């Protein structure tokens, strides 16, 4: 092309300092979930109008646009909605061990969560596959109380 770029000019710095924000995040659904996980259970919120079950549970139903607060327990088994196999890190270097992570729709819920799947060769994972949660020995009310998922 005829266009020639002009002479390079200097750079001057700038910043967007997000440490200056005091973010307020809705914690209700997460608290409900982590409290349940202490008991080895998974709980979300059900919309009493359309029946949609959200895990973690929001304070309102985005379909019906109403307040919702009916706490429901869902199963710790589920179905793979989709998955990916991580093969390199953020810098593009290959990972020593490939990691399978998946979007999993827990039985009884209408939403999906993300989890790792082990005990299966990555080439054998399939969308629609049934999986079950494998919990840590002593759940402490943390999101990683479910250590991973395995084929059912």
């Amino acid at each position: 092309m005829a266009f020639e770029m002009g002479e390079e000019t200097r750079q001057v710095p700038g910043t967007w300092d997000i440490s200056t924000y005091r973010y307020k995040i809705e914690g209700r659904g997460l608290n409900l979930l982590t409290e349940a996980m202490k008991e080895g259970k998974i709980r979300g919120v059900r919309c009493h109008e359309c029946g949609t079950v959200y895990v973690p549970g929001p304070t309102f139903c985005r379909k019906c646009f109403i307040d919702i607060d009916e706490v429901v327990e869902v199963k710790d088994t589920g179905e793979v909605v989709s998955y990916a196999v991580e093969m390199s890190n953020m810098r593009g270097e290959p990972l020593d061990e490939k990691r399978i992570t998946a979007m999993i729709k827990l039985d009884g819920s209408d939403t999906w969560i993300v989890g790792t799947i082990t005990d299966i060769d990555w080439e054998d994972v399939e969308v629609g596959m049934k999986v079950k949660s494998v919990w840590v020995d002593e759940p402490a009310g943390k999101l990683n109380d479910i250590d991973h998922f395995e084929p059912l």
Partner: protein
Amino acid sequence: MERKIAIVGQAQVNSGDVGMPRERLLFELVKGLFDQLGINRHDIDNYLICSNDFTTGRTISNVFEDSPIGAYLKDETKAEVDGVLATTYAMIRIMSGLYDTSLVVSNCLGASECRPYLVMDYQLNPTYDRQLGILNELSTAALQARCYMDTFGMTEGQLDETAARLLDNAARNPDSLPSNSAVTPGDVAASEYLYEPLRQLHCYPFTDGACALVLASEEKAKELTDTPVWIKGVGDSVETNYLGERDLARSRSTKLAGERAYGMAGITDPAGQIDVAEVTAKFASQEPIITEALGLFPEGSGGDVADKGLANTDGDMPVCPSGGALGAYAFAASGLVRLAECFKQLTGTAGDTQVEGARTALAHGQDGFCAQHNAVMVLSREEV
């Protein structure tokens, strides 16, 4: 205008700390407005979010705002500008004939979540002004104040009177921040200097605020309410970004924005035809500059207006009976609040801030340093 558009409802929250996440705040605000109008989210066919990534502290700030305002699987877009201009865009979308109803929502947690002065720093030209660090929200406002006061002989005492009037108005407005009702010009004068001539009480307070309006076409508006407020004229205009090339004592862009809006609305004598004005003066010193550019007062009359109480709620030309931006100021939401306050005035629901017999109102919003970009909307109870 080919299609008549009205504002049919408003809801607003202004607080020193709203104490809930943004998503919940928006849900309660919009749900409340829908309930008030007896509609649900499917009755709105066009959603417009007016928010800013730097006040929200995240990229694509509307990502988490759609569901809370009812826009799940709906036509939604975002204008990152002042609320008066965003509402203009919502109006234009209905005017196109493709929609009948529009919801405009804005929020900014300027008291509890972000730092408003820092948010303004991110607006500075990064290759020059931001590197030098001399100009900021307060120093530019002070230079503008000084320019007006020197040019037209307004005294600091008269500036204090202007601020005191606004703060006193705000104290009567339950939608404003709770403030000291006994604010006198003396109290203002006793507050500390920031950049001279501006003192603390001349400046907008940090506010958590959110506001929502529902707009509708003529047919829909009449279905939804007995008291639609018609949009008669709109206008906006931007001027140069280079502060050293602007006449800070006057607002060229406000004047042009006003002329556009007046032309549409058939206003030939603003001071005579407009019953109440809600302008966005982030600093008390901006009020005379903006109202004069809008032709509500003669040029340079800021001192006189303050002395004679001409802008009082019961004065010749009531300005900001709500308390304006000195009563509460939450960036983009603030422009919507100005419109909401006009809506209250024209529907006779402004309570202790009511201007008797108000039929025509003007709302003004601004963006940028020293109000570089201004938007004006003329509203009326009269359909024709």
